[in-house]
């Protein structure tokens, strides 16, 4: 089964933007055609953003949504930290490292993000980065929506 790691921005945009490729991805996840790799770090980020910007109730609902995603696996800090030594020299911002390491720990095939800066780091030669639009078109096999950065 294909496996994908979706960055924080995919969950936030997918939740808030009806006409976005990220929303299409959230719908695709329900079909269980691929496995979703999550991490404690990712869930913390999503929760923090929603708490700050949408309030506690919305954040709790988002948490429940993420925790109930079918075909998902959560990589915890003990697991992703095992990969830090291998990949820290390939990432310019150390705080991005948990996401990269979770991608490797979860043996993901795709890393979906709108974060162009991340996709331009040295790590790009080892991680299969793609935008939400590219994921919809190349993996799900239908036309994505034209949006800024393919979000």
């Amino acid at each position, binding site marked *: 089964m294909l496996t994908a790691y979706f960055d*924080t*921005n995919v969950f*936030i*945009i997918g*939740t*808030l*933007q*009806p*006409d*976005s490729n990220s*929303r299409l991805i*959230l*719908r695709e996840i*329900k079909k269980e055609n691929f496995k979703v790799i999550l991490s404690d*770090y990712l869930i*913390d*980020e999503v929760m*923090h*953003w929603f708490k*700050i*910007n949408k309030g506690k109730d*919305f954040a709790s*609902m*988002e948490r*429940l*949504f993420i925790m*109930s*995603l*079918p075909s998902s696996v959560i990589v915890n*800090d003990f697991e992703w*930290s095992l990969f*830090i030594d291998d990949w820290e020299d390939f990432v310019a*911002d*150390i*705080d*991005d490292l*948990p996401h990269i390491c979770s991608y490797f720990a979860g043996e993901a095939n795709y890393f979906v993000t*709108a*974060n162009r*800066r991340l996709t331009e780091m040295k790590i790009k030669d080892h991680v299969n980065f793609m935008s939400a639009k590219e994921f919809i078109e190349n993996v799900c096999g239908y036309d994505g929506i034209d*949006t*800024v*950065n393919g*979000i």
Partner: protein
Amino acid sequence: MNSNIDVVRLSAKDSAMIDKFVRVGEFQNKSEFVTYAIKKAINEVILRELEEKSRTTSPMAQKDVDNLLTEIKEIRKKLWEGYAHRIF
């Protein structure tokens, strides 16, 4: 693992259908099927509710995306400090 035992009334048809899935090896037992089905239903109901809440949101422009990425970066930096303290 903490778990609750809940009794669920199923129609004979549904119950037989689940038994069939178990027999053909799709699920290890009836309980696994029910857990799977409930998780899917919860996810679907919440996604519908979240979609409802964001129905009137206008499309994001480049500056909105940039702002969002900056906000996430700020959160990421703070979170990393906590995680790094635990890991190293």
